[in-house]
């Protein structure tokens, strides 16, 4: 193999490596920001559900686990958990608000 070819190959490989690390860094920065947004939405939803006594049991745990997963770089898991927490808070809020001032005797007590 000619020396030139060797240089060309090495430079291709290095550029590729440099490029790809840059790319990965970008991707993970984007994931980071996306997760941060979702997490703050989930926490706002938690506050809202809690304000009407409608928070569900495992929300706090899901959020903690989500933050841990993000810290470990597992954004797929982190996102799933944060999304689950957010959805549960929205459901819990609806559940509580839809009954406020209305919850009373079931039909067999009337």
């Amino acid at each position, binding site marked *: 193999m000619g020396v030139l070819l060797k240089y060309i190959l090495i430079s291709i490989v290095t550029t590729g490596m440099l490029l790809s690390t840059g790319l990965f860094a970008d991707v993970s920065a984007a994931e980071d920001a996306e997760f941060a947004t979702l997490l703050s939405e989930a926490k706002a939803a938690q506050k809202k559900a*809690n304000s009407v*006594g*409608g*928070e*569900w*049991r*495992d*929300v*706090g745990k899901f959020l903690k686990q989500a933050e841990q997963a993000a810290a470990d770089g597992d954004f797929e898991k982190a996102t799933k958990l944060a999304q689950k927490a957010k959805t*549960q808070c929205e459901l*819990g809020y609806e*559940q*509580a608000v839809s*009954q406020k*001032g209305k*919850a*009373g*005797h*079931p039909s*067999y*007590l*009337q």
Partner: protein
Amino acid sequence: MKNALIATVLVLVCSLFVQPLSASPEDNVRLYQDYFKKRFPNIDFQEFANGVYAVNAQLRENWEAIEEFPPYEPFVERGESMWNTAFANGKSYADCFQNGPGSKHLYPQWSKEQGKVITLALAINQCREANGEKPLKYKKGPINDILAYMAYESRGQLTNVVIPADDPRALEAYKQGKEFYFTRRGQLNFSCSHCHFSSSGMNLRSDVLSPAVGQTTGWPVYRSKWGTVGTLHRRYTGCNKQVRAKPFPAQGEEYRNLEYFHTHMSNGVVLNGPSSRK
């Protein structure tokens, strides 16, 4: 004459609609107690104080064996010595509870001065704090000792929760407790009544569900699952968690109002705490 007739008819029609909404606490108690008397026609009314053991013969047998050597006895003894030990300022619980340790039948009570429901556990801590002592934790630990002793000394009294007519806030607290009781909660979307009214006497996994009337008389309770004596609010916490709802703080407003409503429905049932449960 015609006007009077129209007026009467109007009043009657209106009352048809209004009545269910404005049912008094006394009406409610009758409604709830009649429901369980019909559901369990062969049970003596005072037996409801024994919870699930009133409605399930097999569980009752195990329980009677346990009650021969009551697991809560050491707690009662420790509570008695708490009662008889002076605080650092020389005063003691007796200075706060004029009726002596057998005062449980007076709680939960409405306090006009404080504008809130005072449970026995809260009264104990208010007594401690007024005398410069640290408050006790509300779910586990020594609060159960003093509660166990006071419950023991109150045995034989009847549940008699009063909702004073001279302060509308008392009725409001009762109504809050009632709404809490019938509100669906958590991922499972159950209210207390789903388990303790319409499913009482039935199985839930390895448990048989107790009727709501009589559930407040035996506290604090030695639970084998806990391996110790715990408070009513600890039990509320557990029942909220069972339906995957986030529990509320022990002795916070939600649970105190719940206790007010929940205890009131057992008016007339004998106090038999402390007791033991699976």
